[in-house]
């Protein structure tokens, strides 16, 4: 464990070192080195606009992402456990999963305008299909023997769902939420950069400045958000389903 941790720290140090050397060689106008980016990041943090925009953007994103989870998870379970639901929904699932979020943005602007609902809707359509797909794969793969044991002990349908199927699904639900969150954050940035508002707008405008330091600082904050959210979901998973890590492993289920 400590051995692995040492290598991880070494990897981070190495990456920062390479970044510093490359950044110094080509200059801050093209690629600011960490020694320039981190003071800039701290200044942006103190100044407050970065965090304010981030909070607003994340709040809107959470609405879309929340609805995506609320609808995607049960529908994914239904598809995994019922052949009919699978047959009826799968063609549309496959279609929407390959559709690019960016290509939906112009259409959604025409339908929703550029306000709150536009951003929430983009995040919703960007994440729901991944949530659904992951839960579906998990629900389909639940060991049939587990369900058989329940039936042999005379468990009712509801009881077998609540005490066998649901705990077996937790790991996949968490994985689905993690994958969905990655796509939700991506979609948030796509939508906001397109109409230049919120945090994405901040990134877009930072791209116009002479130094790349503010841009990299903004990306660093976004990276922290992703990493922290992921760690929180993992930590939550370990509490409510301690068997999580061994079932899902590091990489999560394969994509289909």
């Amino acid at each position, binding site marked *: 464990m400590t051995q*692995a941790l040492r*290598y*991880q720290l*070494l*990897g*981070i140090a*190495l*990456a920062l070192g390479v970044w510093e050397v490359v950044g110094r060689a080509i200059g801050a*106008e*093209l690629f600011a080195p960490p020694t320039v980016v981190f003071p800039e990041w701290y200044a942006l943090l103190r100044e407050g606009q970065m965090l304010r925009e981030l909070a607003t953007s994340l709040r809107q994103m959470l609405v879309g992402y929340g609805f995506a989870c609320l609808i995607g998870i049960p529908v994914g379970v239904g598809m995994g456990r019922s052949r*009919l639901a699978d*047959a*009826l*929904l*799968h*063609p*549309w699932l*496959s*279609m929407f999963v*390959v*559709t*690019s*979020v*960016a*290509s*939906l*943005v*112009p*259409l959604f*602007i*025409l*339908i929703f305008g550029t306000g709150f609902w536009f951003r929430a809707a983009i995040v919703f359509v960007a994440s729901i299909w991944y949530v659904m797909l992951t839960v579906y794969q998990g629900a389909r793969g639940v060991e049939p023997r587990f369900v058989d044991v329940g039936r042999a002990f005379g468990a009712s349908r509801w009881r077998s769902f609540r005490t066998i199927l649901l705990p077996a699904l937790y790991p996949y639900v968490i994985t689905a939420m993690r994958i969905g969150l*990655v796509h939700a*954050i*991506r979609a*948030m*940035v*796509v939508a906001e*950069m*397109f109409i230049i508002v919120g945090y*994405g707008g901040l*990134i*877009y405008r*930072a*791209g*116009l400045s002479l130094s*790349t330091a503010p*841009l990299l600082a*903004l*990306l660093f904050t*976004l*990276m922290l*958000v*992703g*990493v922290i959210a*992921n760690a929180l979901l993992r930590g939550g998973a370990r509490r409510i389903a301690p068997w999580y890590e061994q079932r899902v492993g*590091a*990489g999560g289920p*394969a*994509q289909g």
Partner: protein
Amino acid sequence: MMRNARALGLTALSILIGLALWQWAAWDISRVVFAPPTAVLARLAADIVSGVLPLALLRSLGALALGFLLAVAIAVPLGFAIGRNAKVAAMADPVLNAIYAVPPVAMVPFLIIWFGLFFESRVALVFLMSFFEILVTVAAGARNVEPTLLAVGRSFGAERARLVTRVMLPASLPFVFAALRVGLVRGINAMITAELFFAAVNLGALMKHSAQRFDTAGLLAVIVLLCLVGLAAQSGLKALEARLLPWHVRQ
């Protein structure tokens, strides 16, 4: 055979129900803001026959092909190097997770600074978006190659080169194909993202013009076309996989 026919029937039914719901929704919301499927399909057919869509798509595919091939050429070997070496994997893990957490579109301002607004930056975005997807999938697959397979090879006295070509390579092809599928779909997404976020050209330009004229049928026709291209790319790679690796594809 019976089952296939039934599955096909259900798929057709599903598409019909979906289209009917869409038609009904379009009626309800107002035809101006949200075009019904009949209008979109008619538009798609008209634009394909007139050559507008195929020509724009053909021009778009150049950036896709170059960016995707570059990504494959670099990400596949790198993925193996990371996956087959525990130390390298431990070192790369936090760095890859960090980079993966940054939305690729947020790199657009960078790409503009480095590559401008045209072909080069489109290639770069395609490269970026498919590169990490392929790298992560290949690294995870390479890490999980069944150790017993390698042990059997070793106990039959296969030397290193033979072990790589006869055991490692066939055992890896399934996840390499999975990586290519995911990477190609991401590449197609990157292609249209680039055409909307850099200078609007090809399909992106068609979309922007349609949006300016509130022409949702035109917008949806491009979206449907892109979706079909994505599905075709996916099933093309799946078919190739079934021919090359018949032992892997299980129905």
